[in-house]
């Protein structure tokens, strides 16, 4: 039987998810995801035409609060857990390697 998801697809999904998989991880992941998707695929065969999807169980609409300013975390407190805070901002590597 054809696997539910192949190596190329797994690589593509990993790229979307910003994960890098080692060769053994890729191998294992392909097999495991196929197994899980095969199980999950059972619901694909159900006739659910016309059934409304549920994204959330509590029916809430427009939960509003008064639009008044209130104190938020001080900037230095919010930045304290960052790996590399710099001048009130988050420092990151350059988006382009050779820039």
């Amino acid at each position, binding site marked *: 039987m054809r696997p539910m998801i192949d190596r190329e697809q797994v690589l593509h999904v990993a790229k979307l998810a910003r*994960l890098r998989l080692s060769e053994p991880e890729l191998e294992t992941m392909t097999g495991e995801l196929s197994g899980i998707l095969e199980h999950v695929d059972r619901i694909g065969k159900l006739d659910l035409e016309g059934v409304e999807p549920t994204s959330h169980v509590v029916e809430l609409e427009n939960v509003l609060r008064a639009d008044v300013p209130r104190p938020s975390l001080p900037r230095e407190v919010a930045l304290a857990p960052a790996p590399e805070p710099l001048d009130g901002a988050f420092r990151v590597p350059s988006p382009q390697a050779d820039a």
Partner: protein
Amino acid sequence: MGGLLELTVAQAAAKIAAGEIAAEEYYEAWRGAAAGDELNAYLCSVDDGAAYEVEEGPLRGIPVAIKDIFCTEGTPTTAGSRILEGYRPPYTATAVRRLDAAGARVLGKTNMDEFAMGSSNENSAYGPVLNPWDRGRVPGGSSGGSAAAVAGGLAPCAIGTDTGGSIRQPASLCGIVGLKPTYGAISRYGMIAFASSLDQCGPLTRDVTDAALLLAAMEGRDPCDSTSVGIEGGVVAPSQEDLKGLRFAVPSELGRDSFDAGVREVFEATLARIEALGGEIAEVSLPSAEHGISAYYVIAPAEASSNLARYDGVRYGQRAETAADLVEMYETTRSEGFGPEVKRRIMLGTYALSSGYYDAYYGQAQKVRTKIADDFSAAFAEFDFVVTPTSPSVAFGLGEKTDDPLSMYLNDFFTVPMSLAGIPAISIPTGLAEPAGGGPKLPVGFQIAAPAFAEQKLLEAAYALEQAVGFESRPEGVDG
């Protein structure tokens, strides 16, 4: 000192309020017990020595073990992940603040499956938790540390989170009470997100009364979580003595062969106990519930893949140092920081949400979710409660299911449908059974589910049953 540790939370709170025990003395007794943790239940204990003002309130002086998924200001919070190693949140979760306001005090942060993804606590980056009944077995998950701490005499009570069974299943496997409240009963603010439409905070306690006390302190609307609504009328300690006139439904699809013989025996005996208390038992059909696992393992990973996108090494947590550019930094940080199960679920969720597959997986799973909620609504038109075993087996061995993610997922068969429907469910211990492969007897949990926001009614029924069952067993060497 043993005497102090034998008290339930309700008993201790009453003695502290009456001045028979000093709050500090009680806390110190538990701090000593927690320091003797041999189960890897705690990831960090809260240092004493700091001046502490005990708030007046119904939980005055009560120490609580907190699952390490709740942000606690200045105290390390890891969610069981390497990627948050060393993270000290700048604020405290609402649930913890409410406990604090009721007079309770954090005892320590408990171990858990990484980002609450798991049913055995073996997915923690900080090592597995051992079941106090048999250290060769798992405590269940993902709130395994919280359950083991309460069952193992390392905390009088604990809180955890339940997305598909993560409070109820470890409570069952450790022989304690675990309650997943209605979605929206307790604020999720400061609770590290796994699957936002399913995650719910709840108590893990020695008995039903203690669960009610903790729920009463934590429930309520919170302006910081727009999906929180609280429980109308609040919650009080239960006192009901019988089950007269109450109707309990057993799902006809339950397939009594789908769980262990020992579990079945305890389950049947508990049904007989319900009847003896005046309750009525009948079968009800929940035709879509059997698709719960499939729908859950699309919806939860999909939401997780989105929620966990925030761990990119920029604002908090670990960052890979060697990266040449930004994208490489993201990828290396995430690849080194996440464990195998978290990667698996991010991959599964990303795939289910990706172009071309969205309707077939995520869209379809959301429709199944509607069908499952409809099944429960139909059942509750006729019945007060739906009951099942909490878990298909007693605690299984460490390493027994780690090579087969699907068989691990199937552990959640009885707990996932209630999560998808957003309804409250409690697990209480009602007996002991031998594991399928033989060996000393282990606890079996009984699950009772009720309509949304019917927590008081659920607690009353669970209390009446608990009193009649009189489950007094404790792991060897644990008082109380």
